[in-house]
């Protein structure tokens, strides 16, 4: 399926989502801090490649604001910032690409899952969102590594606490790639 340029706007929370402001701001800040490590501050927006399942890849743009000094200090742990930041990009991507609405986070003993519902569909048909982030790497090895991480996330969907279908997303920050799986049942 061919798509027009996909816009991922991290500057504000989409009204399509039911995330708390705090959760969204935390993730979006982390994304900006991580993007800032590798990319020039917009404008222009950061060009991105997005791919959904077996579809042709399509071009995208990430719109973001520069992180403040305080925000950089707050997300100094690069591992946590990459993980949290990947959620912001993934949430923006699944909404822009396929119209998914994030319903919120649901907790279990081993963590918390982001839950989303299809565009125009019932909340009762919710699915899980599994996200992985990779900060550094922009070469072919990084591309392979990102694809490998997506496969691992797809496998995790089969093992999670919640016995529901899910979608996996892998975000490469320096690579500026977003890979999205189809719905895994």
């Amino acid at each position, binding site marked *: 399926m061919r798509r027009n340029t996909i816009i991922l706007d991290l500057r504000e929370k989409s009204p399509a989502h039911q995330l708390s402001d705090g959760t969204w701001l935390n993730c979006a800040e982390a994304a900006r801090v991580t993007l800032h490590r590798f990319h020039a501050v917009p404008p222009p927006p950061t060009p991105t490649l997005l791919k959904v399942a077996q579809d042709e890849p399509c071009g995208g743009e990430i719109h973001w604001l520069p992180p403040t000094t305080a925000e950089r200090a707050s997300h100094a742990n690069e591992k946590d910032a990459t993980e949290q930041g990947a959620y912001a990009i993934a949430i923006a991507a699944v909404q822009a690409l396929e119209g998914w609405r994030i319903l*919120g986070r649901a907790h279990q003993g081993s*963590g918390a899952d982001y839950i989303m519902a299809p565009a125009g569909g019932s*909340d009762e048909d919710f699915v899980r969102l599994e996200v992985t982030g990779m900060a550094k790497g922009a070469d072919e090895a990084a591309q392979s590594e990102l694809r490998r991480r997506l496969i691992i996330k797809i496998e995790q969907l089969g093992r999670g606490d919640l*016995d529901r279908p899910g979608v996996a997303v892998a975000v490469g920050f320096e690579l500026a790639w977003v890979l999205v799986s189809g719905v895994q049942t």
Partner: protein
Amino acid sequence: MSAFADPRRLESDELAARAETAWRTGDLRVSRELFAQAAELEEAVATEASTPRVRSLLAVSATALWYKAADYSRAKRCAYSFLADDRTTDQGRVELERLVDRCSREAELARLDFDSSMVPIEIKLEGGRVGTGLAPASVTRGRRERVVAMLMRSAELEAGQEYRERGESDLSASNEVQVFEVPAVAASYGLRFYVASPAQQSLGADQLKPAKVVQRFLAIADAAQRGPDEVRRLVGDELYARAFISGFGELAPDGKDVAAVACSAPTWKVSAPRTVFEPKHRGPLRTAAEAKPVRSPAPGEEVLVGTLEAVHASSSEKWIELKMERRAEPVIVMIDKPLLLRTLFAEIESTLRAFTLPPKPPKHRRHRLVDFEVL
């Protein structure tokens, strides 16, 4: 209004996010308080949700938030109320029962005066002669002991302690860290443990934290799955590395009695990969464990690695020429010990790791050989 759009849910999410931040910064008391506030709101929304899947999802979420608040009795009451409800889905029941089990284990550890920062770790055995809920004792016995030993080694490594040759760990003897075993969950076979530290020691910044111990263990497991050299690279200390290589070599499946062994920490307190060992991982680890120990340089020694090009012996002096990478000319290393000289003659053209004393002008202008290993 959708349950997910309920303002109480949004508030619950905010509180839970703040609780997680407090946990990460070590403020456990604040973290638990915030989780409890989040749980109260989540439970209220779950009780009013009308559709089965959403209701069950929120029921599990509310119970999990009480669990994360370490209010185990409240978590169990919440779980039981939804388990008694016909509208709860089958999957929801499985998750609620799992949480009740966890609450019971951790409540017992708390009763024994261990802190709620305890972390579960699971070693799941699958395939071969392992069945659903049972496994031959011969398969589990050795693995159980190995895992406990490696968890304590992980704690010692994390605490920066020198390698312990034998005997009980100081950390265990002083009750700073303990490893408890808990029964396997029904419908699987897994060795389940908790790494815990006593409650009265929980607030110190330098206190060895169970989450760090488990994270260390799982990072080494991940390295072991990639091979013994990765363990050496990660661990650094050769003696510790050998202990872990040997331990994971024994833990890995043989393909006959056990087909796969998975190591994970099923908890929100630790972010670490799940590592799955297959039979192909066992061989390289066991071979490396059985190999001759790699000597570490003693204080003051310098290690030179190169190809032995020549051995020279005269009545007054004996030396070797070692061709090293990025050096145009071979390095001359003097030999004081006749025994070394005799064995070196047989190793011409071999790659050596030479343990030497560095030059000390004016008396010693060249390296002097103390010992060597053939690579």
